[in-house]
C-alpha cells in the first residue's frame, strides 16, 4: 500500500535530508494488516541511512519522537499496534534536536 512519510525536527538528516517520502509498503508475510510496528522496522531498514539510534530505541521510536498518523497523535490509535491503510500519512518529528 502507498504511504506518505514525513520526517521533521532534524530526523530528515538521517534519511538523506529528504523530508517527504512517498513509499509503498506491504504487510509482513502472513499478516493481513500493516502495523506501525512493521512500518518502523521497514523505515529503519529502507530509509534511515545513518544514526538509527536517533530514530529508534528497541522496536519503537526513541522517546521524544512525536508520531502522527493522519494528523492524529499515535498514542490515540495504539502506538505500535496502529494499523495503517492505503494513502495514510505518517509524520515523525524529533523533539530532541534543536528548538
Amino acid at each position: 500500500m502507498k504511504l506518505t512519510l514525513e520526517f521533521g525536527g532534524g530526523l530528515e538528516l538521517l534519511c538523506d535530508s529528504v523530508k517527504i517520502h512517498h513509499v509503498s509498503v506491504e504487510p509482513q508475510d502472513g499478516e493481513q494488516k500493516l502495523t506501525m510496528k512493521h512500518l518502523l522496522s521497514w523505515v529503519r531498514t529502507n530509509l534511515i541511512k545513518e544514526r538509527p539510534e536517533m530514530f529508534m530505541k528497541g522496536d519503537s521510536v526513541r522517546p521524544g519522537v512525536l508520531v502522527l498518523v493522519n494528523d492524529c497523535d499515535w498514542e490515540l490509535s495504539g502506538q505500535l499496534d496502529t494499523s495503517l491503510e492505503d494513502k495514510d500519512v505518517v509524520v515523525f518529528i524529533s523533539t530532541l534536536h534543536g528548538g
Partner: protein
Amino acid sequence: MEGETAKPAKGRVCTICNQRRAALKRPKTLEQICRECFYAVFEQEIHGVIVENQLFKPGERVAIGASGGKDSTVLAYVLSELNRRHNYGLDLFLLSVDEGITGYRDDSLETVKRNEIQYGLPLKVVSYKELYGWTMDEIVKLIGLKNNCTFCGVFRRQALDRGAALLKVDKLVTGHNADDIAETVLLNILRGDIARLSRCTSITTGEDGPIPRCKPFKYTYEKEIFTYAYFKRLDYFSTECIYSPNAYRGFAREFIKDLERIRPRAILDIIKSGEDFRISTSTKMPEQGNCERCGYISSQKWCKACVLLEGLNRGLPKLGIGRSRGVNNEPGKNTKQAKGVESIQSKQCGNLDF
C-alpha cells in the same frame, strides 16, 4: 492548509467538546482532545500562567528572544495572539542573536525575518561580531570544538541583554519550556549546585539585573509546543547546531524523555522538586557588582564575557574556562563564585534556543 491531510474521521471523540475527533493525548492530563480544543486549552493555559504570575504590566515593552526554533516561534505567535485577544497592552519585539555560524545561524535568521513579517513584530538582531569582534566560526577555529559552548552561552546571554537595552524593553521573554526546566533541575542536582536549583525554576529571573527575563512556557510541555507548531504549520527552523551540544546535557534530556514516556507527569514533578528546594538559603549567591571593563553585571572584577574575550584576544583561549587563573583570581576573592555563569544557561548550546 489545516486539516487537508487528514483522512475521514476515525477513532475517538474529543473529551472536551464531545464532537470532533481527538487529535492528541495531552501529556499533562492524559485527556484526548481535538485540534480546536487543543488550541484553546494550550493558549488559555499560557494566558493563565501570565496572569497568575503577573508577568507583564500594561504599556510594557517586551522582547521575545527569537532563535527561529520552534519554542520561540510558538512563543512569538501565541504571545502576539494573547496580547491582542486579552488586551495586555504590550509592545512586542523579536530579538535575535547572530552568533556567526555559517550554514546554521544564517538560515535560522532567515526564519526569524519571515516571522517578523508573518507576525508583524519588529526585529532586532545583535551579532557577536559587532559586540565582541569575533564570530563563533572564528572562535571555534581558534579553540576547537571542546569548550565552544562556554563561549556561546556566556556571549549569548550578554548579547541578549545588550540587544534588550538597545530596544529599551522592560522585559525579555524566552521560550524555555517545562522539559527544558526539568532538565536544568536535574543537571543542577547532578552538579551539586543547590543554589541554582531553585533559581532555575523561577518563572522570572534577573530582577536584580539590567533586564528581567521570564518564561511563559514554564509549564508547557515540549510535546504540545511541537504539536501546536505542526498543526498550525508555523514556520520554524529545526536543525542541530553544527557546533555539537554538550553530551552531559543530552543525556539528561534523553533521561527526561524516557521518564515522560513512562509517566508524563514526571516533568512537572521534577520542576516542583526544584521549586521546593527553595528552603536551602545557606548557600550564598554571589554579590552583584559591575564589570570594570564593560559595565555588565558581574560578581567579579571582570564579567565572564570579558575574561573569555581577553583570552581570545591574547591568544590564550583557555582563559576563563573551568579553573583558569586570570584577572579574577586575586587573593581574597572567592574563586568558587566564578564558575556560576555557564550553569545558568538552561538550554544546551547545541540548539541555540534561548
